[in-house]
């Protein structure tokens, strides 16, 4: 974890916390997809579907939207990010490595005994993690607390929380939604990775969320519906969120397993690692995809 930051920059990593161009982000997203799948393959367990659907969201946060310093996880001025859908954390680990927070060779230790890259995020073992998650439904409440604390802080920062769509079924999410509106947490932005699929099947069949935008709006939130794979649309939605005094939610329409044909739009790849051949096929699909 100690390799110097400059070495990472030389190795072609992007600088997190600055605004990358859309083209840079696009190629970065391809690499994040490949990294996430390689990690899950090496660990022989994990969650490809929800890791792939949130790639553009995570890339936009770390490489365009958030204030963030690689090498300084406790920098008081950093924007806070809670990945409430903790099972999607491989994408975050891949982004942190690309940002130069630790060496990319660490990625293959995902889920191994003693690794800082736990199966679900662990803030004690990996200080870049803002809060432990993995039990769905809790991250937005913690984010509310982070956003409230900002008001007592001399630093000025925003708080971001990434939720799964299935996760939004949890009652606690709506308790946090109410609290955010009550306290007018304009510096809080939630993103729902609305990939329409959860663990056992389609969200609409398991416990439909519709009309999701209207629900958030009626709870006093600023609602932005966005294509969650469109980097420009994400960038402009995040910018609009900054301008509003209410808490904002990006309802990011995504595809579970995005980028790998056989993983797309199915629950079969929610929590299953690709084998050698599947990994190869997936990587070649990702690499050959047109922008």
């Amino acid at each position, binding site marked *: 974890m100690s390799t110097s930051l400059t070495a990472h920059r030389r190795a072609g990593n992007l600088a997190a916390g600055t605004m990358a161009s859309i083209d840079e982000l696009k190629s970065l997203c391809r690499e994040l997809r490949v990294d996430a799948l390689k990690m899950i393959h090496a660990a022989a367990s994990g969650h490809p579907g929800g890791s792939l659907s949130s790639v553009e969201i995570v890339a936009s946060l770390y490489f365009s939207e958030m204030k963030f310093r690689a090498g300084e996880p406790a920098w008081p001025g950093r924007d806070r990010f809670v990945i409430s859908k903790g099972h999607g954390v491989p994408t975050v680990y891949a982004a942190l490595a690309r940002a130069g927070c630790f060496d990319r060779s660490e990625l293959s230790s995902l889920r191994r005994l003693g690794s800082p890259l736990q*199966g*679900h995020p662990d803030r004690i073992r990996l200080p870049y993690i803002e809060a432990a998650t*993995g*039990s769905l439904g809790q991250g937005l409440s913690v984010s509310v607390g982070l956003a409230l604390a900002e008001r007592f802080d001399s630093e000025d920062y925003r708080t971001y929380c990434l939720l799964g769509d*299935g996760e939004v*079924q*949890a009652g606690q999410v709506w308790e946090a939604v109410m609290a955010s509106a009550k306290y007018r947490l304009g510096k809080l932005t939630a993103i729902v990775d609305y990939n329409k699929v*959860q663990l056992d099947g389609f969200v609409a*069949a398991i*416990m439909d969320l519709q009309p999701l935008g209207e629900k958030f709006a009626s709870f006093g939130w600023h609602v932005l519906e966005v294509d969650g794979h469109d980097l420009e649309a994400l960038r402009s939605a995040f910018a609009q969120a900054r301008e509003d005094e209410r808490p904002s939610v990006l309802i990011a329409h995504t595809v579970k397993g995005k980028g790998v044909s056989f993983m797309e739009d199915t629950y079969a790849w929610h929590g299953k690692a690709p084998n050698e051949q599947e990994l190869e096929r997936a990587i070649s699909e990702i690499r050959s995809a047109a922008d």
Partner: protein
Amino acid sequence: MGKASRAAFGEALLRIGATHERVVALDADLASSVQTRKFAEAYPERFFQLGIAEGNMIGVAAGLALSGMVPFAASFACFIIGRFEQIRMSVGYNNANVRLVGTHSGIGIGEDGYSQMGLEDLALMRSLPNMVVIQPADAVEAEKATEFLADYVGPAYLRLTRQSLEDLNDDDYEFEFGKGVMLREGADLALVATGGVVHNCLLAAEALSQEGLRVAVVNIHTLKPIDDELLRGLAAESPIMTVEDHGVVGGLGSAVVESLSEIKGARVRVHGVRSYGESGSGKELYAKHGLDAVGIASQARDFLNNDS
């Protein structure tokens, strides 16, 4: 290697569906993992998918039970006890006839890490006065325990594993609620265990016997009500070491110590998980936390040598 206890539960529940018309199953987006999917496919009208909302699932189960249905509500053990307040009020205090099923118990689940590991479930469930608590040690026992619970009346908790377990019992094994099972006799030490680690205790006992130690092994499938009589008999004969894939506070070890608290001269060592869980293979984690045969044997030696 035999089946996981969750798999045996799923098969038993499917069979019970045919004979018990009031049995219903509730799920919170984990039917494939907790193995209620087969029941769901066979009896769609008696299966309720509540989404990722375990608190609601448990409340709904209580309501169904209060109106005469026989609900099995299943999720990972950690998410079941994550809704403990609903369990104590809606299920426990109402004496609602709900069977809560917690799978993926213990560090044995491996790579997913602490957030998915049930390590405090026995402690919390045991704390409710009317809650019975059962943890089978293999697939056959899981099947029989599930059958028992289909006819049992009152709040109950069934603790199951994600990982496959070695078979201990034959198909004609009879599950006796509330009774410990003496698997091996021995006067120097009694290993009193629950769940998948019972098998590791048998291996440890065998290894210790090579060193001249006579070690008994007891399977406690019913943690509550616990078999006081058996435990008191054992305590009179030899020191006892409890073994469980659960935190050392509140689980089997505590139950045994409580049972023997007024027994003169009883000596007990409680062996289990002493930290938050973490990622790693189940095998590596059992080695690290001393729950494989080698670890259990070395704890036992340490206990016997520490004759204070």
